């Protein structure tokens, strides 16, 4: 006979769900409003989304206060785990989303933003990412992963261009494959250890001293493939440039930041214990992934003729660079990952937004694609302010001091140095030099070439509105004055990462 189980509500610790529930409630509210009165303007939905994201951010601040005092909080049958990594990554997720959502207020009208579903799906997606990072449980990770991915595919397709459909279908197919790999890998881990919680898996595997190494190998291979797709590590990156090209520039910028940080968190939780417990071949495999992803993506980026595709390859390369943190696995490396990604958020979202405000609906004859390099020729003469801002973003991506990404790079390379990865540190530095070339190429076009006859500066800001300019202003200030923010950010991140035992 079954005993009735008494679970006190307090032990569930439902407050751990608050940050995820806020965007879900927001999404439901948006749908409800649409049912009651349709045809409302997009500004309403942008405003509402922003409001809920702000509340989400507030809830996170609250959670970070709790964490700073009491340490890691478990909740909802110990499925939710609010530790430092979860809080830091959610800050990045919600922060980047807040920077992204006003980009919907473009000057030109775009199909997707006229649907309230776009904003509802967007908020669902945020909740999905938040679930993904705030748990130790492989099943909840899967739920979060799928919620967010399915929403993301739809958001891409809603851009309503041929290329967007192609991109969404491509992403969907690859994503489905990755999801399959993920569930298979998780299954094997469950079979090996009888648990779907990463810390349980870790303790069981360590206790029996990895005696089923063959099965661990299979599980890890599946997991690596799955997250390789999500993080667009070479050779699983093939979807990335096409999807970035097909999606709207704003969406592409979003995709280069938020889904990746969520995936990085899971990778950190899952792989770092494996690397640190002396699974040598895994260390070698990840080493190879890091080096190949950085280098190959850089070389492909060199030959692109379209700025957006170049930025796509560049963000593949940046992902490889940051993946080094998982390999190194020290507290400093993990802190560097967050520092890098927080700074990368500003810079990369800024540069994609610059593409977004120059979005054309009809291509002139001399342009082969929407953001070809030619389009930016002589921009300094026709739109000097925009050219300077774009150049700052490019210099930051290249790692020129004192702009934002330089600090991330220095800290990351330093963590490699400190963990005695001498060769890796050198490879990372030299890759930054290779990457310098293609960022420079855009600067060369903007500053040193003559403008195409008949182009006035209007094309570069054709899509701009006050809210878009504000976002770019935020990104530019964040990029230029990162110097001031680095120290508080570093101390905050390091204390959180350290307190969660990474």
């Amino acid at each position: 006979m079954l005993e009735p189980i008494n679970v006190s509500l307090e032990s569930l610790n439902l407050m751990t769900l608050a940050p995820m529930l806020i965007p879900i409630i927001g999404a439901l509210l948006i749908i409800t409003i649409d049912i009651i009165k349709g045809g409302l303007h997009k500004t309403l939905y942008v405003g509402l989304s922003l409001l809920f994201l702000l509340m989400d951010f507030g809830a996170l601040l609250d959670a970070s206060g709790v964490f700073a005092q009491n340490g890691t909080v478990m909740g909802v049958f110990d499925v939710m785990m609010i530790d430092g990594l979860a809080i830091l990554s959610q800050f990045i997720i919600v922060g980047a989303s807040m920077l992204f959502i006003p980009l919907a207020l473009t000057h030109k009208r775009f199909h997707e933003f006229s649907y309230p579903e776009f904003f509802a799906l967007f908020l669902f997606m945020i909740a999905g990412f938040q679930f993904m990072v705030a748990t130790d449980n492989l099943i909840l990770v899967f739920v979060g992963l799928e919620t967010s991915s399915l929403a993301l595919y739809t958001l891409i397709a809603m851009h309503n261009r041929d290329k967007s459909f192609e991109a969404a279908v491509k992403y969907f197919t690859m994503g489905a494959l990755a999801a399959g790999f993920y569930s298979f890998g998780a299954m094997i881990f469950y079979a090996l250890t009888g648990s779907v919680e990463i810390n349980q898996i870790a303790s069981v595997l360590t206790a029996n001293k990895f005696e089923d190494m063959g099965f661990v190998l299979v599980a890890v291979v599946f997991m690596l493939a799955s997250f390789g797709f999500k993080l667009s590590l070479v050779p699983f990156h093939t979807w990335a440039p096409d999807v970035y090209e097909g999606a709207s520039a704003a969406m592409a910028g979003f995709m280069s930041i938020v889904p990746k940080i969520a995936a990085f968190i899971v990778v950190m939780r899952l792989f770092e214990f494996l690397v640190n417990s002396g699974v040598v071949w895994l260390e070698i495999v990840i080493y190879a992934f890091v080096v190949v992803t950085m280098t190959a993506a850089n070389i492909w980026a060199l030959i692109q003729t379209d700025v957006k595709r170049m930025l796509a390859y560049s963000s593949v390369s940046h992902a490889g660079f940051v993946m080094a943190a998982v390999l190194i696995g020290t507290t400093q490396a993990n802190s560097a990952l967050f520092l890098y990604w927080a700074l990368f958020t500003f810079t990369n979202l800024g540069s994609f937004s610059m593409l977004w405000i120059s979005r054309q609906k009809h291509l002139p004859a001399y342009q082969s694609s929407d953001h070809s390099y030619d389009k930016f020729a002589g921009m300094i003469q026709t739109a000097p302010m925009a050219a300077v801002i774009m150049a700052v973003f490019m210099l930051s991506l290249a790692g020129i001091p004192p702009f934002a990404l330089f600090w991330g790079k220095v800290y990351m390379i330093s963590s490699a140095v400190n963990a005695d990865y001498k060769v890796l540190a050198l490879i990372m530095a030299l890759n930054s030099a290779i990457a310098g070339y293609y960022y420079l190429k855009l600067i060369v076009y903007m500053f040193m070439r003559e403008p195409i006859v008949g182009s006035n500066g209007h094309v570069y800001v054709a899509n701009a509105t006050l809210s878009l300019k504000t976002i770019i202003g935020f990104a530019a200030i964040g990029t230029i004055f990162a110097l001031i923010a680095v120290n508080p950010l570093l101390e905050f991140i390091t204390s959180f990462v350290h307190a969660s035992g990474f």
Partner: protein
Amino acid sequence: MFDHILSILIFFPALAGLFGFVIQKDSVRAYGVAVAAIEFALSLWLWYAFDANVSGMQFMEFLPLVPAFGINYILGVDGVSLFIIILASFFTMIGIASLSDTKNEKNMIITLLFLQMTMVGVFAALDAIVFYIFWELSLVPMLYIIGAWGGPLRIYASVKFFLYTFAGSLVMLVGMLFMAYYFYQATGTWSFAILDWYRLILPETFQLWLFVAFFIGFAIKVPMFPFHTWLPYAHGQAPTIGSVILAAILLKMGTYAFIRFSLPMFPDASVFFMFPIAVIAIIMIIYTAMVAYAQEDIKQVVAYSSISHMGVIILGTFALNVEGITGSVFLMIAHGVVSGALFLLVGVIYDRRHTKMMSEFGGLAQVMPRYATVFGLMLMASVGLPLTINFVGEFLSLLGFYKQSHILTLLAGVAIIVGAIYMLAAYKRMFFGNVTNEKNKNLPDVNTREWLALIPLAIITVWLGVYPKPVLEPINNSVESIVQLMHEKSITAEAKERIPNLIKDAEAATSAQEAH
């Protein structure tokens, strides 16, 4: 105000550059000259307030930037950096004043002001990361100057310049991070302060690797053979002002960094690499001198001769004694003045004829006597004629290295004769003989704006050649403390022997006097 004079010197031009955006574009040159003149006056004030008897750092400033990682904003000058800072502000001033008519003049002047910020910053920084920030940032304005106002191959030249230096300095950055890590291991605190690093004594193997990492960054900047290939392109394509700043100041960053970083931090590695580097320096002197002789383009002749003289600076630096290093620092200044002036002079003729081919000229001395006089003076200085500024530096550098190796010094001396040959040959082709080309018949002589730039340079060339003491003494004091530090820090017997112990020498001298 003296407390923050270095910060003012660094950020005043940048701030003024920002304000420059609102100035109407026909008036911007006057604005630029005014700003650069104020900056120059401030740098002279720095010299006035500088205590020449103190060998250590002066006007130190400290501001925490990223204390969690040991990065602080630390500034300071000693005798080595003081005069290069003055030189930088001086050349920016006369560069802007003598700027010939360029398109987008406003962008050019604002860019120059930003460039000035980075130049002063590099020489005043005493924190490795701050140094690195200015070092890298200086590439950006130069990239723009070459790429936007250069000749037909300007984009290739500017990108090559940027990528070459960028790649080298990233290796240097890894070296810096290693250095900070060793410092952390030794002391338990993070620090990128150069003066802290001076105190750290490293095992020889570590020194060797770190020396190589820093060397790659610096050698590309100098540029040393075989990393010099970017420089002829950069000079060949750059506008006059770009070449002047590049030759006079930017190249000095590399040689200055050797003295600031490599020598005091890695004394044993410096001794270990002394002869290989000296050989490279001599190859650089002889080879580029021969290449210069083969050039048809007068600007390329000046460019290669500039590389050749940088070889003498390197040779002096790696003499590792007071004479050699003092001489090389002095030669940095001399080389800045002379090669800057030569590039300005090439610019003068280029503005008139829009060609730099020597075959186009001939007999210019009859048409432009004043021009020929100044050119002749600078050329003699470049060759190293006694009583000109270059002679003092070259003589001391070679004297310093003579103490280490007689043969190599002799070779370097021969190379200087080659230098005289190609320079005089070029002068002969351009200025002597009859005017053969019709286009040269009616060339106007040097105008007021050009005099404004050339006269001060000519005065300095002769003045410091005849009486170098006011500059030489502060340099000498600071160099002595560096050499003494190197001697005390070195661990191998060979290094102890090669790097003189000044205190012991001084004691020996006084005791010898007492014995008399």
